[in-house]
């Protein structure tokens, strides 16, 4: 599968390259500018974290609908901690721990409770969003200026720090999935959980780790989102889960588990983002954008799929 995975990433990557070239030709003075591309990457960076976590979860044949809620909850915790203690570091730690905790709750309910992941994470989505609203009283909290103007704006070699952080983490996790025992067990569980169990893989413990990882990444995403946008965004993340899942699937990961790559997910994150950015620059009207993005999305995956007709699910 990993061989196939690699091949597939090449194909869907070509689709993305094609889109980039097309927009560069259509809008040579606006689209392929470093200003625009950098903004594009920086807007996609946080979603990338969520989608990377989601890749692991989906490869185990699971799903995590709670990421948006966990993100918001973690951002709220970070904002509260910073407000309370004045320490940015403690705020970040708070967000990470919170995210991890939610992830572990998901993992425990899925692995030990044997409840379908969709239900578990739908439940924790409601709980985390509701919890965030309870903590804030329904009003967005704001990040302190040090965070918003510091981590949120700082650049390194001209690229925002947030992008560096997300890129580094994604790269590490891509390697972890492809080359380590942790990744191997992730594939094994998604491919055949019973065979993995019989082979001595600690399936339950591993699932808890995978959902914990997804939660941890959502927590980090919450902190970074707080830094970048300066607010907790309690109403803004209800479609994050679908966006992340779509990115993972566009990237060639099967919803039935056992196959997929982080590299594919990266491309899957950028295809919709590039489409939207390109169409906005071309001045396509919003309603048409929805239609065209939908159509191009299907076409892009079709081009990819078309190369590997032979394979059935």
């Amino acid at each position: 599968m990993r061989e196939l995975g690699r091949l597939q990433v090449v194909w869907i990557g070509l689709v993305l390259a094609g889109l980039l070239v097309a927009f560069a030709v259509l809008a040579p003075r606006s689209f392929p500018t470093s200003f625009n591309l950098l903004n594009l990457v920086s807007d996609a960076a946080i979603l990338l974290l969520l989608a990377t976590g989601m890749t692991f979860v989906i490869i185990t044949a699971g799903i995590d609908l709670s990421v948006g809620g966990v993100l918001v909850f973690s951002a709220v915790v970070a904002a509260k901690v910073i407000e309370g203690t004045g320490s940015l570091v403690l705020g970040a730690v708070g967000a990470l721990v919170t995210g991890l905790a939610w992830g572990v709750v998901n993992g425990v309910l899925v692995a030990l409770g044997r409840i379908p992941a969709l239900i578990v994470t739908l439940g924790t989505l409601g709980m985390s969003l509701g919890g965030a609203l309870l903590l804030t009283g329904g009003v967005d909290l704001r990040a302190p200026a040090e965070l918003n103007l510091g981590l949120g704006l700082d650049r390194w070699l001209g690229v925002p720090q947030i992008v560096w952080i997300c890129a580094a983490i994604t790269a590490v996790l891509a390697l972890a999935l492809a080359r380590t025992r942790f990744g191997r067990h992730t594939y094994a569980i998604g491919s055949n959980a019973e065979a993995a169990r019989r082979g001595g893989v600690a399936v339950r413990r591993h699932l808890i780790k995978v959902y914990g990882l997804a939660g941890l990444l959502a927590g980090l995403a919450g902190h970074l989102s707080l830094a970048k946008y300066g607010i907790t965004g309690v109403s803004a993340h209800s479609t994050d889960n679908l966006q992340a899942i779509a990115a993972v699937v566009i990237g060639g990961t099967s919803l039935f588990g056992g196959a997929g790559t982080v590299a594919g997910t990266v491309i899957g994150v950028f295809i919709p983002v590039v489409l939207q950015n390109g169409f906005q620059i071309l001045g396509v009207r919003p309603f048409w954008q929805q239609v065209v993005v939908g159509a191009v999305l299907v076409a892009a995956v079709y081009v990819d799929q078309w190369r590997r007709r032979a394979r059935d699910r």
Partner: protein
Amino acid sequence: GQGGEAGGDGQIRITLVQGLAGEEFYETMACGARAKAKELGVTLDVQGPQKFDPTLQTPIVNSVVASKPSAMLIAPTDVKAMIAPLTQAKQQDIKIILVDTVVEDQSIGLSRISTDNLKGGAAAAKALSEQVGGKGKVLVISTDPGVSTVDARIKGFEEEVKANHRGIAYLGVQYSHNDVTEASKIVNAALAKDSDLAGVFATNLNSATGAGSALQQAGKLGQVKMVGFDAGPAQVKQLKDGVVQALIAQLPGDIGAKGVEQAVAAVRGQQVTPSIPTDATIVTAQNVDQPEVQKVLYKAGC
């Protein structure tokens, strides 16, 4: 489509970034802006996020800035979060006009044409209080918590009720997640719990629709008074059908037109007006046909 690359040759290009694409308020604003743009012979593009949210509006602002229009009309979705992307826009020499909402940084926005949702909420409280005769239980149905414009309406409503309408028992807010079915369920449960419910303030169209449907099914239409927000064709129909008894109208078309005027003036280096406030009007079945009220109703499909 070609407009995206046509800048710089004297042609003025303006982009309107809505707070929420596909909402009647902002679509009416776009209509007003388009009409004025046509009149002044400038190009107007319209963009907007799927949700009223800065994290979704920021990428759009970035794309718009990349396409380098002469001016940008924007309804910022957050007073703070939109400062950073708008500062970037300002640095690219794009003239920025704030419409409907504002940001905290006073240096952003050559002109600010704003609606006061707080006042709108207070007007809703007055109207509802009048409809229910100053006493009884009232409920607010909103979309999602955290949407700043809507939160301001609720805040204005609550403050007005607490300050000036002692006879009214305020039951609090329920959230419909902008879903008519949810709004209907909420009113059903509210009626099951408090059969003597007197009034409902629905902060947006979908909430009013769902609530109206529930009242209709329960045969309580007209008995339980409802005040809605905005005055698009759908809302006016609801008013005329007796689903709602009053509407709070803002002036989105006007805001759009004025925004374009100010933007063109700014690009041409003419005088701009830094601040233009607009007001909220209470529309009822009695006054809806009067010409001055007709003027404030939103126009769809331009």
